[in-house]
C-alpha cells in the first residue's frame, strides 16, 4: 500500500539553509499538485541560531502538520537538542545526520526502533567536494530525492530557480551539490515503500496564513492599512506595504498600535475600507479604540495573530489565549464581532467576512488567527480564493433629509455618510450621543443607544451562524474546539472514523456573537462533549459556559501553547474515551 503522506523534518544551525531546503521541498510539492503544509521554528536569535523546518507532503487532503516525522535530517545534533519535544521522529523514522557532526547521538537516544533507519551521511563533505561548500541543504535534497522517489526533475528546476536567480554560476554549483546528493542517496539502502506514490496534478498556490489574511483584505477592498510590527503578525503589514501602493492604496507604519488602529478608524470614518494586524500585546493597546469604533459605529478590521502570553510571552510560538481579550476587553458595553480562522485558506475567507460584517453593520471586527496558521505555508487551490464582497451602503436621498447619522432603526444600523457627501455632514464622537451624533449624557439616551448598538448583533448572529461540523450526525463523542485546533481535530476524527468510532466535531468560525443554536444542535447530537484548546486557563471552555450550558461530564483537554496541538494528542483523548467505556453510559 502506498503511503498517504510523508513528513520530513530538517534541523540545523543558521547558515545551514534549513528554511531554503524546506522551501524547495514544499515548492516542488506545490508545483506537482501535492498538498503541502510547511512550518518553521527558530531560536530567539535575530540572525543565525538554530532553525527547524517540517514539511508534510500528501497526494490527499491534509489538515495539520504531521506529528512524529517520517524522515529527520539533522545537520547539527546540538541544534536538534534545542527543539526538544517539538521535532519528534517516529519510532520507524529514517534519520539522516551529518557524519562529521562532533556531537554524537544514538538511535536509542531518539527512540528509533529496529524498523527505523539510522544513517550517517557526509553532507558537508559531499557539498565541499561538489565545490559548493555551503550547500549541505541541497545535498540533502538530493539524498531525500533518491531515497524517497521525490520528483527529481521538479526539485532540480526549483534548485536552479532558487540559486540561479542572481548568478547562473551559483545555480550550476547548487545543481552539482544536488547531483552529488542523488548519487550518494543511490548508495543507501533503497526504501521505495516509504516514498509517496502520486500522479502530478495542476500546480497549487503555496501561501502563509498571514499572506492569506492580507490577500483577503485586498480582495475585500481594503485600501488603507496601518500597522506596527509585532511577531507573529508582521508579514501582514509587509504584504500590505508591498502591494497596496500598486492597487492605489496606502500604508502607514505608525509609531505604535494606538496610532495604527486610530488611523484605521480615521480612514474608515473617511469612507475607505481599512485594516490593521497585530498580536496579543498590540491588541491590548488597541482596546481603547475598539471602544471608540463601537461607540461611533465606525467599521474596522483587526487581525490578531495570537502568540503565547501574557506580556511578551512566547513571541514566535502559538497559543489560543487572546480569546477573552478579543471578546471582552474594553471599557463599557461595546459590541464587536470576533471571527476565528482555522487554517491558511480560512485566513483569507474570515478576513473578507470581517470586512463584510464591519462595513454592513458598522462594527469593529476582530479576526483571530495564531502563529501556527499565520506563519505556516500551505497549498491552496487557486479557485477557492473567491468570496463575495459587501460594500458600505451610501445614505439615500431620502435618508439625507434631516440626516440622522445614528437613526434608531429596527436592525440597529443606520445609514453612514462619508466626507464628500454634501447633505451628509455630521459630527460624531466617543461620547454618548443622540441620533444626530450630538453629545447626550441623559440616562434614557444611553439606554436607547446601547440597545441600538447591541441590536446589530442579532442580524449578524442570524446571518453568520458559521460553524464547521465533522463526523456522523449522531456520535458518542463530540469534540468542540476553535481556530487552529481544527486541523488536528479533523484528522483525529477521520482516524476514529476508520476505526469505526463515532466521533463528531464542532468548530465555530463565528466566535462572538456565538452561534448558540448551531452549538446546541450539536450538543444534542452527541453523548459526551470534549472541549479542546491551547489555553492554560481554559478560556474557550469557560467562554462556552458563558453563552450556553455544558453538561457536567464534559471533558476538557487544555494546555499552554508553545507547541501546536498534535493529531496524536487528540487521538489519545478519543482512544481514552472509548477505552473507558464512557460511550456506554448514555446521553449526557
Amino acid at each position: 500500500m502506498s503511503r498517504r503522506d510523508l513528513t520530513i523534518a530538517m534541523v540545523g544551525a543558521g547558515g545551514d539553509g534549513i528554511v531554503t531546503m524546506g522551501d524547495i521541498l514544499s515548492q516542488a510539492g506545490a508545483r506537482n499538485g501535492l498538498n503541502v503544509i510547511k512550518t518553521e521554528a527558530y531560536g530567539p536569535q535575530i540572525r543565525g541560531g538554530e532553525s527547524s523546518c517540517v514539511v508534510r507532503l500528501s497526494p490527499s487532503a491534509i489538515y495539520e502538520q504531521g506529528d512524529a516525522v517520517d524522515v529527520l535530517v539533522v545537520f547539527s545534533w546540538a541544534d536538534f537538542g534545542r527543539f526538544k519535544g517539538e521535532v519528534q521522529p517516529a519510532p520507524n523514522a529514517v534519520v539522516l545526520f551529518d557524519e562529521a557532526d562532533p556531537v554524537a547521538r544514538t538511535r536509542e537516544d531518539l527512540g528509533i526502533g529496529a524498523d527505523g533507519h539510522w544513517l550517517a551521511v557526509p553532507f558537508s563533505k559531499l557539498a565541499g567536494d561538489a565545490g559548493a561548500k555551503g550547500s549541505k541543504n541541497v545535498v540533502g535534497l538530493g539524498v531525500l530525492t533518491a531515497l524517497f522517489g521525490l520528483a527529481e526533475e521538479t526539485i532540480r528546476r526549483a534548485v536552479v530557480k532558487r540559486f540561479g536567480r542572481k548568478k547562473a554560476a551559483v545555480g550550476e554549483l547548487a545543481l552539482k551539490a544536488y547531483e552529488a546528493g542523488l548519487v550518494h542517496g543511490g548508495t543507501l539502502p533503497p526504501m521505495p515503500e516509504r516514498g509517496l506514490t502520486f500522479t502530478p496534478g495542476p500546480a497549487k498556490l503555496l501561501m502563509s496564513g498571514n499572506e492569506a489574511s492580507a490577500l483577503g483584505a485586498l480582495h475585500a477592498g481594503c485600501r488603507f492599512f496601518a500597522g506596527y510590527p509585532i511577531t507573529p503578525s508582521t508579514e501582514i503589514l509587509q504584504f500590505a506595504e508591498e502591494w497596496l501602493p500598486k492597487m492605489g492604496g496606502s500604508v502607514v507604519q505608525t509609531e505604535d498600535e494606538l496610532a495604527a488602529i486610530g488611523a484605521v478608524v480615521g480612514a474608515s470614518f473617511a469612507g475607505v475600507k481599512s485594516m490593521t494586524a497585530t498580536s496579543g500585546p498590540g491588541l491590548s493597546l488597541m482596546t481603547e479604540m475598539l471602544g471608540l469604533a463601537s461607540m461611533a459605529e465606525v467599521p474596522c478590521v483587526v487581525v490578531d495573530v495570537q502568540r503565547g502570553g501574557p506580556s511578551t510571552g512566547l513571541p514566535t510560538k502559538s497559543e489560543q489565549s487572546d480569546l477573552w481579550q478579543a471578546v471582552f476587553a474594553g471599557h463599557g458595553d461595546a459590541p464587536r464581532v470576533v471571527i476565528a480562522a482555522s487554517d491558511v485558506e480560512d485566513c483569507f475567507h474570515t478576513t473578507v467576512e470581517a470586512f463584510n460584517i464591519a462595513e454592513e453593520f458598522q462594527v469593529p471586527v476582530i479576526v483571530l488567527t495564531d502563529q501556527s496558521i499565520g506563519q505556516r505555508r500551505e497549498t491552496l487551490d487557486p479557485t477557492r480564493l473567491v468570496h463575495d464582497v459587501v460594500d458600505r451602503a451610501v445614505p439615500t436621498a431620502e435618508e439625507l433629509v434631516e440626516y440622522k447619522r445614528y437613526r434608531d432603526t429596527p436592525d440597529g444600523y443606520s445609514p453612514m455618510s462619508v466626507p464628500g457627501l454634501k447633505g451628509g455632514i455630521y459630527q460624531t464622537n466617543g461620547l454618548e450621543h443622540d441620533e444626530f451624533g450630538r453629545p447626550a449624557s441623559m440616562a434614557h439616551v444611553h439606554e436607547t443607544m446601547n440597545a441600538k448598538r447591541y441590536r446589530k448583533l442579532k442580524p449578524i448572529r442570524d446571518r453568520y451562524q458559521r460553524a464547521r461540523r465533522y463526523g456522523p450526525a449522531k456520535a458518542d463523542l463530540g469534540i468542540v474546539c476553535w481556530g487552529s485546533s481544527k486541523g488536528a481535530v479533523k484528522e483525529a476524527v477521520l482516524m476514529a472514523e476508520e476505526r469505526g468510532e463515532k466521533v463528531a466535531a464542532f468548530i465555530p468560525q463565528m466566535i462572538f456573537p456565538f452561534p448558540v443554536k448551531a452549538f446546541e444542535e450539536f450538543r444534542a447530537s452527541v453523548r459526551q462533549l470534549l472541549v479542546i484548546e491551547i489555553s492554560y486557563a481554559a478560556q474557550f471552555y469557560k467562554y462556552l459556559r458563558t453563552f450556553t450550558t455544558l453538561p457536567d461530564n464534559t471533558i476538557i483537554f487544555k494546555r499552554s501553547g508553545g507547541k501546536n496541538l498534535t493529531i496524536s494528542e487528540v487521538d489519545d483523548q478519543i482512544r481514552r474515551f472509548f477505552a473507558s467505556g464512557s460511550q456506554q453510559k448514555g446521553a449526557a
Partner: protein
Amino acid sequence: MSAAPPALPVFVPGDYKTDLKPVWCPGCGDFGVLTALYRAMAELQLTPELTAVVSGIGCSSRLPGYVETYGFNTVHGRALPLATGVAVSRPDVKVIAVGGDGDGLAIGGNHFMHSARRNLDVTYILMDNEIYGLTKGQVAPTTPTGDKTKTTHYGNPEPAVDPCELAISFGATWVGRAFSGDLKGTVELIVKALRHRGFAFLNVMSPCVTWRGDDQFKSLKAKARPLPAGHDVTSRFEAFKFTRETDVLSTGVLYDVKSPSLNDRLDTIKVTARAGAPLVTVPEIVKTFLPSF
C-alpha cells in the same frame, strides 16, 4: 449655446457654525479660536463636505461639534492618529486636528512627534491653556514650574515644554504661535496654517478663566507681541530664539519651509510601485504564489 456658469457658493463664517452650543465657560479663550476658525474657513472658502475636523479629548476637543464639516471628537490623545487615517486615505479632504495641551503634549505626545516628522497633511491647532480644564484644574505639560494646581498643591515641581519648540524639533514644516485674545491675528495665522502643504502646527495661547483665573488672560495680553519684522521663517535656529520665552509672547509664523508632505511622498511611492503599469488586481497577486519553474 453656452450656459451661464453656475454660481459659486459663497460661504460666510456663520455657514460653518452648527446649532450645538459650546460647553465652554463664559470667557474661555477657545471661543476666540472657534470664531477665528470660522472666519479663516470662510476666507479660504473651504468646502464643508470636503473638510474634516478631528480632535481628542478635553475642553478644546469639543470643537468639532461646533463646526459644520465632517467632525470627529475621538478619545484622549488620539486626534492625530485619527487625522492620519483621514488625511492619507482621503487626500481630497482638508483635515484640521484640534486639541489642548494635555491631549496633544502629554497623552498624545508620541503622535505629535511622529505626525510632525511625517509632514502629515494636517493643520494642527493646539489650544494651550496650561491646565487640564475638563477634568477641573490639574497640572499640564505646559503649566509653568511652581504654579499651584489641583495636583500641584505645593507648586508644580516640573519644568514646562514649549510646544512650538517641540514641533520644530519634530520636523513640522510650518509652526506658528497665536493668542486667542487677538482675533485678527489668530484668523491670519489659521489662514496661513491652512494654506500650508504638510504639517502645520499652530499653538494658540487660549486662556482658561475658570482654572487659571483672570491673571492668565491679563498676563498673556500684556506679553503678546508680534514677532519682529524680518524674522527669518526658514531658519530653525532663528525660530528657536522665540521659544521658551518668559517675559514676552511672540506671535506669528515662527517657521515655514517647503518639503514634500506625507501624501506627496506616498503618491510618489504609488507611481514608483506601479512603474507605469495599470493597477494590480488581486488575481494577479494570487498568481505570484504559484510555483513558477
